[in-house]
């Protein structure tokens, strides 16, 4: 396949089975925020789950954004590196600034039903090659450097569940005949 500039997307799902510290902070704080914000849309508590709120209450989609306010502090603590996705050395290396926050479902009282996902979108990286099940990449747009033969610093990223290529643009070099 033709190589080029790509953005990688990683969808991180956080629910009650989560165990590491960062995930638990996000899980607990976004559940509290969901509970707090849901009370404004449904003061009587007639619709205890997010699904029911979406079905019956206008504006329930606001809860994605309003609940995300409890996660943003933790997302900033990641220091602009996508979590969980490691290179072959086991180090996080994919820079990101863009993310999307989504409530999959939740319950105002029963925290065990709280489930959210965060999409992390990497900054543009140059996809140089594919080595077995790994993408050989260099950060940023390196399409100008590739033809010069200069040495590039690279990373090898194993393809894994919930990691995908979300954006693609052909490099300047590859679209030339």
């Amino acid at each position, binding site marked *: 396949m033709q190589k080029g500039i790509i953005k990688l997307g990683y969808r991180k799902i956080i629910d009650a089975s989560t165990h590491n510290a960062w995930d638990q902070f996000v899980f607990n704080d976004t559940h509290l925020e969901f509970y707090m914000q849901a*009370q*404004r849309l449904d003061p009587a508590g007639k619709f205890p789950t997010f699904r029911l709120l979406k079905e019956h209450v206008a504006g329930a*989609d606001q809860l994605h954004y309003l609940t995300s306010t409890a996660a943003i502090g933790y997302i900033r603590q990641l220091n602009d590196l996508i979590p969980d996705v490691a290179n072959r050395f086991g180090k*996080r290396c994919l820079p990101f600034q863009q993310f999307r926050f989504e409530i999959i479902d939740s319950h105002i009282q029963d925290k065990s039903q709280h489930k959210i996902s965060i999409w992390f979108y990497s900054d543009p990286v140059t996809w140089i090659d594919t080595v077995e099940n790994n993408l050989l990449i260099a950060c940023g747009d390196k399409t100008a450097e590739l033809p010069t033969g200069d040495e590039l610093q690279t990373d090898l990223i194993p393809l894994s569940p919930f990691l995908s290529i979300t954006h693609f643009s052909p490099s300047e070099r590859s679209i030339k005949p």
Partner: protein
Amino acid sequence: MERKEFLKRTFSALGIAAISPMVGACTTTDTVEPDATTGTTTGSCTTTSDETDGPFPTKSPASLVATDIRSDRQGTPLTVKITVQNKNASCAALAGALVDIWHCDAAGNYSEYGGTGMQSTNFQSVHFLRGRQTTDATGLVTFTSIYPGWYSGRAVHIHVHVYNSSGKSLKISQIAFPEDISKVVFAQGVYASHGQADTTNARDNVFSDGVTTNISTITGSTAAGYVLTWNMVVEA
């Protein structure tokens, strides 16, 4: 090269490599060492080793927690002072209550709060004019904001939601504004192009049942900025 010199250089290179391994090719800001756990091989693939979410996560308040909620919004300065009283305790000040406020900007727009749109880690202006504070021993919270604008069909207002310290809702209400002051504000500055509000407190759907408990006291001037004070009585 002499063998001795070659070995010296090699060890020197290894020494440097040990201090600053070229593992974060994309960036070198991730300095947290990986867990000692190594990957386990199953069949033809290898489980990714556990990785510390460095830097170590710390408890972080919601981004709504802020005293200055203006973000990038321009307008006449407004200090919002809300005192929360507890009707169930002889109207004593309620300390430790969470107070959320939100209002529109000079043009009548709220910060975006729809759906699952893309957000950016370094872009905060989507959070303008929303804030949360915890009441002090006197039941008071103070926000630094701008005088709200208006939008069609509603009188000028600030939304307020008070919770107890566990997040349980105690009261949702709205602060109304004295119309004589709004008229002065909307005739000047960034408000002027939007004109005067089209809905009075008396004709407003929310306030039409009377604004006695909603109306705020406002002092100040367009030059010096205004201070809004308002008492909110909840049953906690």
